[in-house]
């Protein structure tokens, strides 16, 4: 890997070399490095681009890294990654994609991730998106995440896109069986003329299932964001979605929460708040010695932390 590729890798996966545990590092459309472990097996798909990941029952305290790096301008790819997680697992999965586009052609990565999580398993999934490069070609990321959670399983998803991605359409779908829980923390910042659309469709199918979708975002300059979250309670369940956004400059933000209660014992809540940074927050930090610009950065960093 060259220096640019290494830098992207550290941005999206906090990696400075080959990680421990299982991994597949994809660079410019091909697998640069791969390692399976006794419990986590990674194999290439035969029909389409992508990998199958099989995690054995009872796999505990193991990690899987599957970062993607695009540093060639004009590269467009659609990649299918399927995760088959056994029962009683406890695993951390770090994905993420970084694009460095120094050329005039658009670079695009559409990652389709499907998770089939077994009973009583616990997954922490971290996905960071990052764009860089001075070219006029766009950096486009369209991730699709489909999650099927088995009985009493737990999945925590952290999805971060702070910088440099020109266009994103993110689709997240989840189906939860009895006792399953899904927690999503999405953090997003757009600037320039970027556009980010995030849609959720969460089906709470099992008794005692629980979903908590929390999105915090900052839209600057002339950027556009849309948060579209649908929670469907099809059984006695609990669902909560929250979209909290700071709007700046000439940006536009739409928040479209939707709740479908199909069972009398479905308890569903949505909250959405969009507003600019409160002037008194800036003033308070200025009385503590920060400049107006530093105060603004501090407020945004805290909000997205």
């Amino acid at each position, binding site marked *: 890997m060259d220096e640019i590729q290494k830098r992207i890798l550290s941005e999206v996966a906090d990696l400075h070399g080959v990680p421990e545990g299982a991994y597949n590092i994809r660079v410019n459309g091909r697998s640069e490095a791969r390692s399976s472990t006794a419990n986590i097996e990674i194999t290439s798909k035969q029909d389409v681009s992508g990998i199958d990941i099989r995690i054995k029952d009872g796999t505990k305290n193991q990690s899987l890294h599957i970062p993607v790096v695009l540093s060639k301008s004009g590269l467009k790819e659609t990649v299918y990654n399927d995760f088959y997680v056994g029962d009683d697992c406890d695993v951390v999965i770090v994905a993420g994609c970084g694009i460095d586009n120094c050329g005039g052609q658009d670079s695009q990565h559409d990652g389709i991730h499907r998770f089939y999580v077994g009973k009583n398993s616990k997954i922490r999934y971290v996905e960071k998106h990052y764009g860089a490069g001075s070219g006029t070609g766009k950096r486009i990321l369209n991730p699709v995440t489909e999650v099927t959670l088995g009985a009493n399983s737990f999945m925590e998803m952290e999805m971060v896109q702070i910088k440099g991605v020109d266009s994103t359409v993110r689709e997240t779908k989840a189906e939860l069986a009895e006792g399953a829980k899904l927690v999503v923390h999405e953090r997003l910042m757009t600037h320039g003329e970027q556009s980010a659309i995030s849609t959720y469709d969460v089906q709470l199918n099992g008794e005692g299932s629980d979903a908590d979708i929390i999105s915090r975002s900052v839209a600057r300059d002339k950027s556009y964001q849309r948060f579209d979250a649908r929670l469907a309670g099809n059984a006695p369940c609990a669902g909560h979605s929250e979209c909290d956004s700071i709007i700046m400059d000439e940006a536009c933000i739409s928040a479209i929460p939707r709740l479908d209660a199909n069972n009398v014992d479905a308890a569903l809540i949505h909250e959405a708040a969009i507003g600019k940074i409160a002037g008194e927050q800036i003033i*308070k930090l200025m009385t*503590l010695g920060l400049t107006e610009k530093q105060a603004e950065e501090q407020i945004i960093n805290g909000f*997205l932390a």
Partner: protein
Amino acid sequence: MLELKDICFEVEEDGPKTIVSGVNLTVGDGKFVVITGPNGSGKSTLAKIIAGIQQPTSGSILLDGEDITGLSITGRAQRGIGYAFQNPVRFKGIRVKDLIRIAVGADISVTEACNYLSEVGLCARNYIDREVNASLSGGELKRIEIATVLARRSRIAVFDEPEAGIDLWSFGNLIEVFERMRSANSANSILVISHQERILNIADEIVVLTGGRITAHGARQEILPSILGTGAAVDVCERMGGRS
């Protein structure tokens, strides 16, 4: 030393309206000065003018001889003006320790940050990692606000109604905070906006502001007897009872 020279502040409200008029005031080094007066007399506006949050229509402000009238809030903070809000601000995502670190202006340890919370009677362990958001009560926020001003170690610390929103226990604590501030550095001054008799009782000097003008200013012994029982000096229980 802080000097206010002929400070005026007007707003446009169906024509010009005077909020503060011709205020001349000197706060000497090491002094504890309380500004009191009826509601709407311009006390909070004057505090904001000192902190740079409001610009005076005319007049000048000098800190240790330097004219700071044209300086921003930041510029004044950096020269040693501290300001505690009457209604503290909430922040989503900023933690108590972040705020204290910003106030100190250095990346201090958690233990050092905790010391400031202990000063205002908060069990540091329970608060240091909390977000300064709506999950904190008004009284907790108020004490955190005071802790951030303590952390500034200001030349002139301005407190706008520091007792508002705190309970009786922390009221006693607040008095101790002021007394410790005075003994910690004899050159720094404290300027408090308050009606509270217990705060007036520890003042070196009392300033009475009425209708935007200073109507009395002198040593506590001289001023306090004349204002006891008026709206400018109320008993703590009476005032808190009145609010509940």
